[in-house]
Protein backbone atom coordinates (compact mmCIF):
# COMPACT_ATOMS: atom_id res chain seq x y z
CA UNK A 1 0.00 0.00 0.00
CA UNK A 2 2.69 2.45 0.99
CA UNK A 3 4.71 1.74 -2.11
CA UNK A 4 1.70 2.22 -4.36
CA UNK A 5 0.88 5.44 -2.59
CA UNK A 6 4.45 6.64 -3.14
CA UNK A 7 4.32 5.83 -6.84
CA UNK A 8 0.93 7.46 -7.24
CA UNK A 9 2.11 10.71 -5.73
CA UNK A 10 5.37 10.62 -7.62
CA UNK A 11 3.40 10.37 -10.85
CA UNK A 12 1.05 13.07 -9.67
CA UNK A 13 3.95 15.41 -9.01
CA UNK A 14 5.44 14.61 -12.40
CA UNK A 15 2.23 15.34 -14.27
CA UNK A 16 1.60 18.49 -12.28
CA UNK A 17 5.01 19.85 -13.14
CA UNK A 18 5.09 18.65 -16.73
CA UNK A 19 1.60 19.70 -17.68
CA UNK A 20 0.83 22.54 -19.96
CA UNK A 21 -2.84 23.08 -20.33
CA UNK A 22 -4.34 22.76 -23.75
CA UNK A 23 -5.32 26.16 -25.05
CA UNK A 24 -9.07 26.33 -25.51
CA UNK A 25 -10.02 25.55 -29.06
CA UNK A 26 -12.58 27.77 -30.73
CA UNK A 27 -14.01 25.01 -32.88
CA UNK A 28 -13.96 21.26 -32.93
CA UNK A 29 -11.75 20.02 -35.72
CA UNK A 30 -11.25 16.39 -36.58
CA UNK A 31 -8.05 16.23 -38.53
CA UNK A 32 -7.52 13.61 -41.23
CA UNK A 33 -5.28 10.65 -40.50
CA UNK A 34 -1.83 10.03 -41.92
CA UNK A 35 1.10 7.74 -41.24
CA UNK A 36 3.41 10.70 -40.71
CA UNK A 37 4.75 10.77 -37.16
CA UNK A 38 6.83 13.94 -37.26
CA UNK A 39 6.24 16.08 -34.20
CA UNK A 40 6.58 19.83 -34.21
CA UNK A 41 10.12 20.55 -32.96
CA UNK A 42 10.20 21.49 -29.31
CA UNK A 43 10.48 25.19 -28.65
CA UNK A 44 9.31 26.32 -32.05
CA UNK A 45 6.76 29.07 -32.01
CA UNK A 46 3.74 28.02 -33.99
CA UNK A 47 1.31 30.02 -36.03
CA UNK A 48 -1.66 27.70 -36.06
CA UNK A 49 -4.23 28.14 -38.78
CA UNK A 50 -7.34 26.21 -37.89
CA UNK A 51 -9.93 25.49 -40.54
CA UNK A 52 -13.20 23.96 -39.44
CA UNK A 53 -15.53 21.77 -41.48
CA UNK A 54 -17.35 24.85 -42.78
CA UNK A 55 -14.12 26.39 -44.00
CA UNK A 56 -13.85 29.14 -41.39
CA UNK A 57 -10.27 30.13 -40.63
CA UNK A 58 -8.97 30.84 -37.13
CA UNK A 59 -5.53 32.18 -36.29
CA UNK A 60 -3.66 31.27 -33.12
CA UNK A 61 -0.17 31.87 -31.80
CA UNK A 62 1.10 30.13 -28.70
CA UNK A 63 3.49 32.80 -27.52
CA UNK A 64 2.37 35.92 -25.67
CA UNK A 65 5.15 38.32 -26.75
CA UNK A 66 4.51 37.27 -30.35
CA UNK A 67 0.80 37.93 -29.97
CA UNK A 68 1.51 41.31 -28.42
CA UNK A 69 3.74 42.36 -31.27
CA UNK A 70 1.41 40.94 -33.92
CA UNK A 71 -1.64 42.81 -32.67
CA UNK A 72 0.31 46.06 -32.44
CA UNK A 73 1.49 45.63 -35.99
CA UNK A 74 -1.96 44.73 -37.32
CA UNK A 75 -3.48 47.59 -35.37
CA UNK A 76 -1.18 50.20 -36.88
CA UNK A 77 -1.20 48.68 -40.37
CA UNK A 78 -4.95 48.39 -40.64
CA UNK A 79 -5.74 51.41 -38.48
CA UNK A 80 -8.08 49.45 -36.21
CA UNK A 81 -7.81 52.04 -33.40
CA UNK A 82 -7.63 49.47 -30.66
CA UNK A 83 -6.96 50.68 -27.13
CA UNK A 84 -4.23 49.22 -24.96
CA UNK A 85 -6.84 47.28 -22.97
CA UNK A 86 -8.33 45.78 -26.11
CA UNK A 87 -4.89 44.70 -27.25
CA UNK A 88 -4.28 43.09 -23.88
CA UNK A 89 -7.51 41.16 -24.29
CA UNK A 90 -6.18 39.92 -27.59
CA UNK A 91 -2.88 38.87 -26.02
CA UNK A 92 -4.69 36.92 -23.32
CA UNK A 93 -6.98 35.25 -25.85
CA UNK A 94 -5.91 32.01 -27.44
CA UNK A 95 -7.23 32.26 -30.97
CA UNK A 96 -8.98 34.64 -33.27
CA UNK A 97 -11.52 34.09 -35.99
CA UNK A 98 -12.97 37.57 -36.23
CA UNK A 99 -12.63 39.81 -39.28
CA UNK A 100 -10.95 43.18 -38.74
CA UNK A 101 -14.24 45.02 -39.06
CA UNK A 102 -15.67 43.28 -36.00
CA UNK A 103 -12.46 42.91 -34.03
CA UNK A 104 -12.80 46.03 -31.89
CA UNK A 105 -16.33 45.20 -30.83
CA UNK A 106 -15.29 41.60 -30.11
CA UNK A 107 -12.39 42.63 -27.89
CA UNK A 108 -14.65 45.03 -25.99
CA UNK A 109 -17.25 42.38 -25.23
CA UNK A 110 -17.52 40.39 -22.02
CA UNK A 111 -15.75 37.00 -21.90
CA UNK A 112 -19.07 35.16 -22.20
CA UNK A 113 -20.08 37.23 -25.19
CA UNK A 114 -16.63 36.62 -26.72
CA UNK A 115 -17.12 32.89 -26.43
CA UNK A 116 -20.41 33.19 -28.28
CA UNK A 117 -18.84 35.44 -30.90
CA UNK A 118 -16.00 32.99 -31.39
CA UNK A 119 -18.42 30.14 -32.06
CA UNK A 120 -20.50 32.23 -34.46
CA UNK A 121 -17.49 33.93 -35.99
CA UNK A 122 -17.24 34.31 -39.74
CA UNK A 123 -13.59 33.27 -39.67
CA UNK A 124 -10.67 35.26 -40.99
CA UNK A 125 -11.38 36.25 -44.59
CA UNK A 126 -8.86 34.84 -47.01
CA UNK A 127 -8.28 34.81 -50.73
CA UNK A 128 -6.12 32.93 -53.19
CA UNK A 129 -4.37 36.18 -54.12
CA UNK A 130 -2.11 37.52 -51.37
CA UNK A 131 -2.62 41.13 -52.26
CA UNK A 132 -6.40 40.96 -52.53
CA UNK A 133 -7.85 43.68 -50.29
CA UNK A 134 -10.07 41.20 -48.47
CA UNK A 135 -7.25 38.81 -47.71
CA UNK A 136 -7.00 39.50 -43.98
CA UNK A 137 -5.24 36.21 -43.41
CA UNK A 138 -2.31 37.59 -45.37
CA UNK A 139 -2.12 40.50 -42.93
CA UNK A 140 -1.94 38.14 -39.94
CA UNK A 141 0.69 35.98 -41.59
CA UNK A 142 2.73 39.02 -42.55
CA UNK A 143 2.63 40.39 -39.01
CA UNK A 144 3.56 37.01 -37.53
CA UNK A 145 6.42 36.55 -39.96
CA UNK A 146 7.74 40.05 -39.38
CA UNK A 147 7.72 39.44 -35.64
CA UNK A 148 9.39 36.09 -35.88
CA UNK A 149 10.82 35.04 -39.21
CA UNK A 150 11.29 31.47 -37.95
CA UNK A 151 7.67 31.03 -36.93
CA UNK A 152 6.42 27.62 -37.94
CA UNK A 153 3.17 27.58 -39.80
CA UNK A 154 0.86 24.69 -39.09
CA UNK A 155 -2.46 24.12 -40.78
CA UNK A 156 -4.98 22.21 -38.72
CA UNK A 157 -7.90 21.65 -40.98
CA UNK A 158 -10.93 19.43 -40.67
CA UNK A 159 -10.96 16.48 -43.04
CA UNK A 160 -14.40 17.56 -44.22
CA UNK A 161 -13.29 21.11 -45.05
CA UNK A 162 -13.52 21.82 -48.73
CA UNK A 163 -10.26 21.96 -50.62
CA UNK A 164 -10.71 25.56 -51.86
CA UNK A 165 -10.83 26.84 -48.26
CA UNK A 166 -7.45 25.25 -47.56
CA UNK A 167 -6.19 26.23 -50.99
CA UNK A 168 -6.71 29.88 -50.04
CA UNK A 169 -4.29 29.44 -47.16
CA UNK A 170 -1.76 27.56 -49.26
CA UNK A 171 -1.91 30.18 -52.01
CA UNK A 172 -1.52 33.00 -49.50
CA UNK A 173 1.52 31.27 -48.02
CA UNK A 174 2.94 30.76 -51.49
CA UNK A 175 2.41 34.45 -52.15
CA UNK A 176 4.78 35.12 -49.26
CA UNK A 177 7.16 32.50 -50.63
CA UNK A 178 6.47 30.14 -47.79
CA UNK A 179 6.64 26.77 -49.44
CA UNK A 180 7.29 24.68 -46.37
CA UNK A 181 4.68 24.23 -43.71
CA UNK A 182 3.11 21.55 -41.58
CA UNK A 183 -0.28 19.94 -41.74
CA UNK A 184 -1.52 18.59 -38.45
CA UNK A 185 -2.84 15.08 -38.79
CA UNK A 186 -3.82 12.18 -36.58
CA UNK A 187 -1.60 9.17 -36.54
CA UNK A 188 -2.68 5.96 -38.24
CA UNK A 189 -0.95 2.64 -38.67
CA UNK A 190 1.10 1.96 -41.76
CA UNK A 191 -0.73 -0.49 -44.02
CA UNK A 192 1.12 -3.76 -44.44
CA UNK A 193 2.78 -4.65 -47.70
CA UNK A 194 3.65 -1.12 -48.74
CA UNK A 195 7.00 0.60 -49.24
CA UNK A 196 6.67 2.59 -46.02
CA UNK A 197 5.79 -0.57 -44.08
CA UNK A 198 8.88 -2.36 -45.36
CA UNK A 199 10.99 0.67 -44.51
CA UNK A 200 9.71 0.90 -40.97
CA UNK A 201 10.32 -2.79 -40.38
CA UNK A 202 13.81 -2.68 -41.81
CA UNK A 203 14.62 0.09 -39.35
CA UNK A 204 13.17 -2.02 -36.53
CA UNK A 205 15.19 -5.04 -37.53
CA UNK A 206 18.40 -3.00 -37.44
CA UNK A 207 17.68 -1.93 -33.89
Amino acid at each position, binding site marked *: *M*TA*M*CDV*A*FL*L*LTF*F*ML*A*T*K*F*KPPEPVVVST*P*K*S*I*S*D*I*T*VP*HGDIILLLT*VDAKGRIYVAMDDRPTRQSVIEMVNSDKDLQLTKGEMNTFVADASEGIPFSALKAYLDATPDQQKMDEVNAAGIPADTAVLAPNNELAEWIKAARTTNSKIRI*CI*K*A*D*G*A*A*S*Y*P*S*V*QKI*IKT*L*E*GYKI*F*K*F*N*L*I*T*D*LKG*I*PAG*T*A*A*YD*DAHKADAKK
Partner: protein
Amino acid sequence: MAEMDTSGGGHKKGPGVKKGKKLSTRIDLTPMVDLGFLLITFFMYTTTLAKPKTMEINMPYKDPNDKVEPNKIKESVALTVLLSKNHRVYYYEGMASDPTKPPDLKATTFAAKNGIRDEIIAKKKMVDDLKRAGTLTAKDEMTVLIKPDTTSSYGDMVNMLDEMNINDIKVYAIIDITDVDQNFIKETEVANGVK
Protein backbone atom coordinates in the same frame (compact mmCIF):
# COMPACT_ATOMS: atom_id res chain seq x y z
CA MET B 1 5.17 4.38 7.03
CA ALA B 2 1.94 5.51 8.50
CA GLU B 3 1.84 2.97 11.23
CA MET B 4 3.86 2.63 14.40
CA ASP B 5 5.11 -0.31 16.27
CA THR B 6 2.73 -0.51 19.17
CA SER B 7 3.58 -3.97 20.35
CA GLY B 8 5.45 -2.63 23.37
CA GLY B 9 8.82 -3.55 24.72
CA GLY B 10 8.34 -7.26 24.58
CA HIS B 11 8.90 -7.94 28.30
CA LYS B 12 6.33 -10.21 29.74
CA LYS B 13 3.91 -8.91 32.23
CA GLY B 14 2.74 -11.00 35.10
CA PRO B 15 -0.56 -12.84 34.93
CA GLY B 16 -2.22 -10.39 37.26
CA VAL B 17 -1.29 -7.31 35.33
CA LYS B 18 -3.96 -6.09 33.00
CA LYS B 19 -2.90 -5.35 29.46
CA GLY B 20 -3.24 -1.72 28.49
CA LYS B 21 -5.66 -1.34 25.62
CA LYS B 22 -3.68 -1.00 22.42
CA LEU B 23 -4.90 1.76 20.22
CA SER B 24 -4.27 1.22 16.57
CA THR B 25 -2.33 4.04 14.99
CA ARG B 26 -2.85 2.74 11.45
CA ILE B 27 -4.35 5.29 9.15
CA ASP B 28 -6.53 4.21 6.30
CA LEU B 29 -4.68 5.45 3.24
CA THR B 30 -7.23 4.31 0.67
CA PRO B 31 -9.04 7.66 0.24
CA MET B 32 -5.75 9.47 -0.16
CA VAL B 33 -4.57 7.05 -2.82
CA ASP B 34 -7.92 7.34 -4.53
CA LEU B 35 -7.57 11.07 -4.61
CA GLY B 36 -4.01 10.73 -5.84
CA PHE B 37 -5.03 8.59 -8.77
CA LEU B 38 -7.95 10.82 -9.55
CA LEU B 39 -5.60 13.77 -9.85
CA ILE B 40 -3.15 11.74 -11.94
CA THR B 41 -5.93 10.86 -14.32
CA PHE B 42 -6.97 14.49 -14.52
CA PHE B 43 -3.48 15.70 -15.29
CA MET B 44 -2.89 12.91 -17.77
CA TYR B 45 -5.97 13.92 -19.72
CA THR B 46 -5.34 17.63 -19.69
CA THR B 47 -1.65 17.50 -20.39
CA THR B 48 -0.32 18.23 -23.85
CA LEU B 49 2.64 15.95 -23.48
CA ALA B 50 1.75 14.27 -26.72
CA LYS B 51 2.56 16.94 -29.24
CA PRO B 52 0.41 16.84 -32.34
CA LYS B 53 1.73 14.77 -35.18
CA THR B 54 2.26 16.68 -38.34
CA MET B 55 2.97 16.13 -41.95
CA GLU B 56 5.52 18.37 -43.50
CA ILE B 57 4.89 19.44 -47.04
CA ASN B 58 7.02 21.36 -49.42
CA MET B 59 5.19 23.10 -52.18
CA PRO B 60 7.06 23.51 -55.46
CA TYR B 61 8.98 26.74 -55.52
CA LYS B 62 7.25 29.31 -57.66
CA ASP B 63 8.32 32.81 -58.43
CA PRO B 64 5.30 34.94 -59.23
CA ASN B 65 7.41 37.02 -61.60
CA ASP B 66 8.65 33.97 -63.42
CA LYS B 67 6.06 33.15 -66.06
CA VAL B 68 7.91 30.38 -67.84
CA GLU B 69 7.52 27.07 -66.12
CA PRO B 70 10.05 24.55 -67.28
CA ASN B 71 8.33 21.28 -67.92
CA LYS B 72 11.04 18.76 -67.34
CA ILE B 73 8.97 15.77 -66.35
CA LYS B 74 8.71 13.03 -68.92
CA GLU B 75 5.25 11.84 -69.88
CA SER B 76 6.13 8.23 -69.18
CA VAL B 77 6.99 8.77 -65.50
CA ALA B 78 3.99 10.91 -64.67
CA LEU B 79 0.74 9.84 -63.09
CA THR B 80 -1.95 12.47 -62.76
CA VAL B 81 -4.46 12.06 -59.98
CA LEU B 82 -7.61 14.13 -59.91
CA LEU B 83 -9.53 14.38 -56.65
CA SER B 84 -13.22 14.88 -57.07
CA LYS B 85 -16.34 15.07 -54.94
CA ASN B 86 -17.51 12.31 -52.60
CA HIS B 87 -13.94 11.05 -52.16
CA ARG B 88 -13.82 9.91 -55.76
CA VAL B 89 -10.44 9.69 -57.40
CA TYR B 90 -9.66 9.81 -61.10
CA TYR B 91 -6.28 9.10 -62.55
CA TYR B 92 -4.54 8.82 -65.87
CA GLU B 93 -1.07 8.05 -67.09
CA GLY B 94 1.04 10.95 -68.21
CA MET B 95 0.16 14.60 -67.96
CA ALA B 96 -2.24 15.03 -70.87
CA SER B 97 0.11 17.58 -72.40
CA ASP B 98 -0.84 16.49 -75.89
CA PRO B 99 -4.33 17.86 -76.56
CA THR B 100 -4.84 15.63 -79.58
CA LYS B 101 -4.62 12.50 -77.46
CA PRO B 102 -7.07 12.75 -74.58
CA PRO B 103 -5.98 10.54 -71.68
CA ASP B 104 -7.82 7.44 -70.60
CA LEU B 105 -9.40 8.58 -67.36
CA LYS B 106 -10.10 5.86 -64.82
CA ALA B 107 -12.08 6.16 -61.62
CA THR B 108 -11.03 4.62 -58.34
CA THR B 109 -11.22 5.18 -54.57
CA PHE B 110 -8.99 5.36 -51.53
CA ALA B 111 -9.82 1.77 -50.61
CA ALA B 112 -6.90 -0.32 -49.41
CA LYS B 113 -7.61 -2.97 -52.04
CA ASN B 114 -7.93 -2.13 -55.73
CA GLY B 115 -7.79 1.56 -54.89
CA ILE B 116 -5.42 4.28 -55.94
CA ARG B 117 -2.63 2.67 -53.91
CA ASP B 118 -2.49 -0.37 -56.18
CA GLU B 119 -2.32 1.90 -59.20
CA ILE B 120 0.57 3.85 -57.72
CA ILE B 121 2.44 0.66 -56.90
CA ALA B 122 1.83 -0.66 -60.42
CA LYS B 123 3.02 2.59 -61.99
CA LYS B 124 6.09 2.65 -59.78
CA LYS B 125 6.97 -0.87 -60.86
CA MET B 126 6.50 0.11 -64.48
CA VAL B 127 8.86 3.06 -64.10
CA ASP B 128 11.42 0.84 -62.38
CA ASP B 129 11.18 -1.68 -65.21
CA LEU B 130 11.67 1.05 -67.81
CA LYS B 131 14.70 2.23 -65.88
CA ARG B 132 16.17 -1.25 -65.90
CA ALA B 133 15.45 -1.63 -69.59
CA GLY B 134 17.36 1.56 -70.22
CA THR B 135 14.45 3.52 -71.67
CA LEU B 136 14.61 5.89 -68.73
CA THR B 137 17.75 7.13 -67.05
CA ALA B 138 18.46 6.68 -63.35
CA LYS B 139 17.60 10.33 -62.84
CA ASP B 140 14.01 9.86 -63.86
CA GLU B 141 11.73 9.45 -60.89
CA MET B 142 8.11 8.53 -60.88
CA THR B 143 6.14 11.72 -60.47
CA VAL B 144 2.62 12.08 -59.18
CA LEU B 145 0.68 15.20 -60.03
CA ILE B 146 -2.12 15.75 -57.56
CA LYS B 147 -4.89 17.98 -58.79
CA PRO B 148 -7.64 18.47 -56.27
CA ASP B 149 -10.85 19.69 -57.84
CA THR B 150 -12.76 22.51 -56.20
CA THR B 151 -15.36 19.98 -55.04
CA SER B 152 -12.84 17.80 -53.23
CA SER B 153 -12.24 17.90 -49.49
CA TYR B 154 -9.08 18.65 -47.58
CA GLY B 155 -9.19 15.13 -46.16
CA ASP B 156 -8.82 13.71 -49.66
CA MET B 157 -5.75 15.82 -50.27
CA VAL B 158 -4.14 14.64 -47.04
CA ASN B 159 -5.08 11.06 -47.91
CA MET B 160 -3.38 11.45 -51.26
CA LEU B 161 -0.25 13.00 -49.72
CA ASP B 162 -0.26 10.14 -47.26
CA GLU B 163 -0.33 7.66 -50.12
CA MET B 164 2.83 9.34 -51.38
CA ASN B 165 4.52 8.64 -48.05
CA ILE B 166 3.09 5.15 -47.84
CA ASN B 167 4.35 4.21 -51.29
CA ASP B 168 7.60 6.12 -50.99
CA ILE B 169 6.99 8.38 -53.96
CA LYS B 170 9.71 10.99 -53.83
CA VAL B 171 8.48 13.42 -56.41
CA TYR B 172 4.96 14.74 -56.22
CA ALA B 173 3.25 18.06 -56.45
CA ILE B 174 -0.09 19.61 -55.70
CA ILE B 175 -1.18 21.52 -58.76
CA ASP B 176 -4.23 23.61 -59.49
CA ILE B 177 -6.78 21.77 -61.52
CA THR B 178 -7.23 23.02 -65.07
CA ASP B 179 -10.43 23.41 -67.06
CA VAL B 180 -9.23 20.59 -69.29
CA ASP B 181 -9.03 18.23 -66.31
CA GLN B 182 -12.37 19.37 -65.00
CA ASN B 183 -13.85 18.55 -68.38
CA PHE B 184 -12.29 15.08 -68.27
CA ILE B 185 -14.01 14.47 -64.96
CA LYS B 186 -17.31 15.73 -66.27
CA GLU B 187 -17.11 13.55 -69.37
CA THR B 188 -16.25 10.48 -67.33
CA GLU B 189 -19.05 11.18 -64.90
CA VAL B 190 -21.52 11.49 -67.76
CA ALA B 191 -20.20 8.33 -69.39
CA ASN B 192 -20.58 6.39 -66.15
CA GLY B 193 -23.94 7.90 -65.33
CA VAL B 194 -22.71 9.56 -62.13
CA LYS B 195 -24.57 12.63 -61.08
